[in-house]
């Protein structure tokens, strides 16, 4: 395993530690709808968050909470009938430009794909083209974004990328179906890093493999992330996994972020009743054995969401006004830093800073 960065020539300017901590992505009031005959379904409802360079943001929620819609909107990969109908995704490029990914036209977006913005999908079996050898699937993206590169350089880079995730370079000649499941998933991660992106969106990258492999892959992702310094948006329904890897975690419910904060905070002191439910449903692997508690009820029908707080029908602590008033994401306690929650149980603080 070599310790040097992927591409010494470029990494001077690329995922730069100098910029680490600077904002990379500013998502504000992002709204994604599924347009159907019988009206629109709000898959993401005014989602806002900020992601800094080199940060790992975890995104957790049940299926149907809108997390997948959110990442296809972030990466502009959504297909009809899904549509981004409101909000902005402000992206700070490496060379200091600020772009709105919602309105950026496809032609100008294409050079940014994979060089700034890569994605790792849930199932590598489905994500690799079954009829192309791995090397061809690495080569086409490398050549696309670096047209002058020679064949030897491409092969060499492919080999290095594969080795980085613990795959023998000769494996580049294989077809996807000739690899084991775990190997495929790691190859997919290597592919995502082929052009040294600033941001890698990971959509449940380890759900398709067994638990042991899952640990290995997570370790690898963390190591690579620390070495190369890319930011990660990590989507999963497994909160305990996020507790171990994320810098911050956002909890989604019915298309909205209901709570966002550091893992420790969310774990020791969840503010939103839904977060608490999720935590109790997924204990961390290293925690002592406790009684598991599920969340009663099922996620709301997004075609006809309940009024007020969408969680109120399942909430044990609901107040009468929860049925009418929609809680906004707000800061709660000044010492909690950037911690925010959307729940009427917790009063908001004034921008001035005094807790009420």
């Amino acid at each position: 395993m070599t310790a040097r960065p992927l591409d010494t020539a470029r990494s001077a300017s690329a995922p730069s530690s100098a910029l680490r901590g600077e904002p990379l992505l500013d998502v504000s009031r992002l709204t994604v709808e599924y347009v159907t005959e019988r009206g629109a379904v709000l898959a993401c409802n005014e989602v806002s968050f900020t992601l800094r360079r080199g940060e790992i943001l975890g995104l957790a929620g049940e299926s149907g909470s809108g997390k997948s819609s959110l990442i296809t909107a972030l990466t502009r990969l959504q297909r009809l009938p899904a549509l981004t109908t409101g909000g902005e995704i402000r992206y700070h490029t490496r060379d200091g430009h600020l772009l709105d990914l919602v309105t950026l036209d496809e032609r100008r977006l294409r050079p940014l794909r994979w060089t700034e913005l890569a994605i790792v999908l849930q199932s590598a079996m489905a994500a690799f083209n079954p009829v192309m050898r791995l090397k061809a699937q690495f080569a086409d993206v490398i050549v696309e974004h670096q047209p002058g590169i020679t064949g030897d350089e491409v092969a060499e880079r492919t080999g290095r990328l594969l080795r980085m995730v613990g795959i023998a370079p000769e494996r580049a000649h294989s077809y996807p179906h000739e690899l084991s499941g775990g190997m495929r998933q790691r190859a997919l991660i290597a592919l995502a890093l082929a052009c040294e992106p600033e941001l890698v969106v990971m959509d449940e990258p380890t759900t398709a493999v067994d638990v042991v492999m899952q640990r290995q892959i997570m370790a690898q992702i963390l190591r690579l992330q620390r070495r190369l310094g890319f930011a990660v948006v990590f989507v999963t329904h497994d909160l305990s996994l996020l507790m171990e890897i994320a810098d911050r975690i956002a909890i989604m419910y019915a298309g909205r972020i209901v709570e966002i904060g550091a893992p420790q905070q969310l774990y020791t002191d969840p503010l939103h009743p839904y977060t608490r439910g999720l935590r109790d449903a997924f204990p961390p692997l290293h925690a002592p054995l406790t009684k598991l508690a599920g969340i009663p009820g099922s996620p709301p029908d997004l075609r006809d969401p309940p009024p007020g707080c969408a969680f109120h029908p399942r909430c044990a602590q609901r107040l009468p006004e929860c049925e009418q008033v929609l809680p906004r994401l707000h800061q709660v306690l000044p010492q909690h830093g950037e911690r925010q929650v959307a729940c009427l149980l917790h009063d908001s603080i004034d921008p001035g800073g005094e807790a009420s």
Partner: protein
Amino acid sequence: MSQFLTNGKVRIGLAVFGAFLLIALIGSWLVSSVLGTDPHRIDYDALGAAPGGEHLLGTTTSGQDVLAQLITGCRGSVAVGLLSGVLAVGVAALVGVTGGFIGGRTDQMLTAVTNIFATLPSFPLMLIVAGYMANVGPVAIALLIGLFEWPVCARYLRAQTLSLRGRDFVQALRMVGESRWRMVLVEIMPHLTGILSSLFLRAVVTGVFTEAGLRFLGIGGGDSVTWGTMIAFAQQQEGVVRGMWWWFAPPGLFIALLGTATALVNFGLDEIGNPVLRHSSRAAVRRATAHMAARRDRTNTVEVAS
């Protein structure tokens, strides 16, 4: 199922289909009472007349009314289509559902037979069998067509039955010890009605198609009129070379109309399964996209102010 009938394409397709069925049913009455003629009567004053006047769609070279033939031919064609369709889907259901449900060696055997029949070139085979049978009536032709048409349907039905067999409710019934045939008839068949009717529709049209082809080649005697015989006579009696389009064009178009109707029904079914294709949702999408495009124009620049 409720979606099924509200889909516009399905409705139009079924309406066209129904219209042809109706014509087939009341055709002879229409011709004798409304047109006041019969498809074989020869009008010596109008040999090969163009459309208009007494003969709405003109006459053949031998002075027979084209419209009367077209209406009468509908019955002949549709009857053969229906009969062959019933036979094809019947055999297919027997072979496909049995194989898919029982599985094991029986299934392998039935699948092999199905594949062999599907691979054999059916049209020349029909031609030869018909050639051996000196005088082939409409019923024989329908049976012949049905006999070579079932393999395709059987494949679909087998696949569908296989997937049904794996479902929970069937597994559960097995545990309970429900008898096999009762399970097939009461539990499996109702779930197959959708695909069965779609296959039947297609089989009917294939039947009409093939019948026309065989009759066009002179297979099948008797003086029964079908769309196929009309086109055949139009060719034999120089209707084509004399440019009598009103003679050979309508029957071909009617056959195509019937085929398009089936295609429409299938399009509709696709749309129900795959919402992206739905027209009305496309309209909604278009509105939403236009809205976003307008927003894009307003910002008009890629860079946003920071």
